[in-house]
């Protein structure tokens, strides 16, 4: 597709369950970012991939959160033992490089942990 695609658009799960969120970036974009946005807040950085490797994972809140990008394209954000505080919209973005360019965002995956 032309833009960044995220699935699922909505996910409702129970506390303690495991969740995977998928991001398909714009074709050819080498940089991929995950952000988390809570209600009424700005996007909060989680992790950044350049190619297949995580160049900066300083925003991951704890070891329950993990992300992969094995072939340098699609990425999966994985959350183990979900907690109610994990409820948020998870945004994925991609860009052509790591320089001055803008990020292109998907519409997000809304996660609700009951």
């Amino acid at each position: 597709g032309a833009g960044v695609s995220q699935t699922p658009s909505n996910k409702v799960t129970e506390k303690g369950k495991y969740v995977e969120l998928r991001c398909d970036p714009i074709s050819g974009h080498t940089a991929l970012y995950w952000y988390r946005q809570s209600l009424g807040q700005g996007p909060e950085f989680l992790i950044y991939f350049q190619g297949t490797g995580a160049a900066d994972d300083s925003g991951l809140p704890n070891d329950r959160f993990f992300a992969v990008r094995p072939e340098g394209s699609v990425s999966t954000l994985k959350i183990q033992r979900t907690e109610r505080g994990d409820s948020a919209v998870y945004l994925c973005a991609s860009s052509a490089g790591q320089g001055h360019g803008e990020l292109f965002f998907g519409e997000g995956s809304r996660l609700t942990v009951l």
Partner: protein
Amino acid sequence: AQSVAQPEDQVNVAEGNPLTVKCTYSVSGNPYLFWYVQYPNRGLQFLLKYITGDNLVKGSYGFEAEFNKSQTSFHLKKPSALVSDSALYFCAVRDFTGTASKLTFGTGTRLQVTL
């Protein structure tokens, strides 16, 4: 670390009037500044950016922003607001750490344009 601040949670303006959404920044080195807009239940859309050059940057949907180095500001402006401009606006700065970089966002300003 680089940061931006948006001092207003909400800005109200009548349609047809000029609008300003404020942003100030704190960076070491040259700032790379961005504005994004978010409509309800949608992802963020890029409006404009300042990297270098002319202090007045023009972007999408008739928006522009003025970079002011002495005041460390990058306010978003539009000469004549439309009801359809009502949305959440985010200022952001490119934050370089070693070989990596990311966008760091402000807390957002809700723009409400009324008839």
